[in-house]
């Protein structure tokens, strides 16, 4: 992995809530890609991928959003995003609405979650800048990245163990990677589930945070800002010291600053 990648046209797909609430995660994603010599474009016309509409049964809204997304992103070589859930919606649920759309069919295989893109397209074996992160971290496998994108071997399946997050963290010096009890239980966010069923959502989140804390980790590291937002809200409510951190924040050497 020594050649620059200036020839490829990569578009950042920044989910709507990340744009508003986690701009530093989006910026770290851009900088990480640029660090590998990738030319990054951010199409300003993008809005929401339509997952909230889909998850609440609004087929019309979901279909409109899918068509809009496809029109905006179809001409890029790759579409890369720091959210496994939104990527999974585009890759696996858009066919419910626009399966026959030729532009979508051509675009679908080129949509990547950032860690997938680094590992499968850029095939990175080092970080752009060396990163020393001497902290214990607990891995949070977000459900859609895990079970729909295959980021790791889900605990339910009897298949050989693998984990993208653990693999990419091997490029970071000093980091101490830990796994919580119930290694891939849902945090309870679930999009609008978090406000439709707030008590269950928070009960799940409290249990999840406690399991991450029990590893002795200082940070909960994941690849999906939505789960980190939910757990972060619980952590701050309880004034706990553990901090949620998106994987790109560690990979760009910004971890701990957040």
């Amino acid at each position: 992995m020594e050649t620059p990648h200036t020839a490829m046209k990569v578009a950042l797909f920044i989910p709507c809530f990340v744009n508003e609430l986690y701009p530093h995660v989006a910026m770290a994603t851009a900088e990480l890609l640029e660090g590998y010599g990738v030319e990054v474009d951010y199409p300003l016309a993008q809005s929401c991928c339509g997952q909230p509409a889909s998850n609440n049964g609004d087929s019309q809204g979901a279909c409109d959003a899918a068509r809009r997304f496809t029109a905006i992103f179809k001409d890029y070589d790759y579409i890369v995003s720091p959210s496994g859930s939104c990527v999974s919606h585009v890759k696996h649920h858009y066919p419910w609405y626009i399966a026959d759309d030729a532009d979508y069919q051509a675009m679908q295989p080129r949509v990547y979650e950032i860690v997938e893109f680094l590992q499968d397209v850029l095939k990175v074996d080092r970080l752009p800048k060396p990163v020393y992160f001497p902290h214990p971290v607990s891995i949070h496998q977000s459900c859609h990245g895990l079970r729909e994108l295959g980021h790791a071997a889900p605990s339910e399946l009897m298949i050989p163990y693998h984990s993208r997050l653990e693999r990419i963290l091997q490029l970071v010096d000093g980091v101490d990677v830990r796994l919580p009890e119930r290694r891939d239980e849902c945090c309870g966010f679930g999009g609008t589930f978090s406000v439709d069923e707030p008590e269950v959502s928070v009960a799940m989140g409290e249990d999840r945070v406690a399991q991450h804390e029990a590893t002795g980790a200082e940070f909960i590291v994941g690849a999906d800002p939505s789960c980190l937002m939910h757990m972060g809200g619980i952590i701050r409510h309880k004034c706990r010291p553990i901090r949620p951190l998106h994987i790109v924040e560690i990979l760009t050497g910004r971890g701990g600053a957040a």
Partner: protein
Amino acid sequence: MKQDNINHAEAAAAFLQDREQARWHDSAIWWVRQKRDAQAKQLPEWEQLRALAQQIKSHTLSRLDEYLTEFQTNAERNGVTVHWAADADEHNRIVYGILAAANVKKLVKSKSMLTEECGLNPYLEQRGIEVIDTDLGERIVQLRHEPPSHIVMPAIHLKKEQISELFHKELGTEAGNNDPTYLTHAARANLREHFLTAGAGLTGVNFAIAETGGVVVCTNEGNADLGTALPPIHIASMGLEKIIPKQAHLGVFTRLLARSAIGSPITTYTSHFQQARPGGEMHIVIVDNGRSDILGSDDFSQSLRCIRCGACMNTCPVYRRSTGHSYSYIIPGPIGSTLGPSRDIKKHGSMAFACTTCGSCSNVCPVKINLHEQLILQRKRAFDAGTLKPVKKMGLLAMRFLTQHPSLLDAGGKLMRKVVPILPVALTQHSAWSRPGRELPQMPAQSFKEMWQARKENKQ
């Protein structure tokens, strides 16, 4: 029977008020999930078995009419009377007809979710027939006059202390004796009496084999065997999706069933019934009750592959933190949350929203039903049927509009970032987000779009 109009979010919130009991419920059921994992891990061919089970069931469903006819022919050749019931009411009428014809006053039942679905117990009781559930868990919930909270472990929501209290009241056991062995013996002695005096036994059916016309019932307590060996009449009630083509296919399912359900290599009893015992009668009631409608649906036909192991409930983080009693349909958890809405979207549509779409259920399912996707697809039906709360529907329509107009979406986002930090706590703390103990995210000064544009201008 379940009471009407259970709202999952409200019922779950009430259940979670007692956090200690809720944690115990979560841990007890998670323990079963772990037992399942340990058993599955011991079979190197586990994933192949799941694929095979999926294929056998899919094939069977694609030719269900042929296999049902073959099953009926072979069962009748064995001297079994086969009945067809289009719906719950017809099922109940048939069962009552059989019992009334033989002047049966007491029926012993082994576990059957189908009879729960059909509301058989109250139907018979209203007609003067005493019905005794003989599965221990079913017996406990029957004595408590409540529905099962789980399809395999009907009384999993109860602690032994609660059962001790119940048995003291109903069966006259010692007050305060919580010893599970003592309590089980008391139930057993009581049930023995009923087995000996019943005029008929009713069982569910786990598998019906087209090739032999026989049915297979899996239990851990042997109650189906006593209930069919002692009374002269055996009625087996089955949903029409229980068919498998050949005896040779059975092993695939029995290897998956108990491991998935309770983390055991096999159920204690796997009983094969092919004909009535000498001098007795055997009846099989094949029930549709909405199943052929599901079979005709591209989105939901897979749900008919279900073998009722309950593994999806055990793995479901929402189920474990809300109990089966929080779901409006008689079958709770992920599989119930597609079957219920399939049956009646207006009544059970909200069940499809009691889910974070984590997908764990689809992965544990031994017949690989795409459960979490079905729940999302059921939400489409709920939306179209107009069952969403008006405020939610308005929010979705607003989001639909904003998604098409990003400048307005951005303006809304900016407004949120500026206003939320200055809102008085009194205003935010009662929001659905914050109320149960969760802070709003910190609001950054700039959106990424703003940062990106500023960065671009600096570069130029």
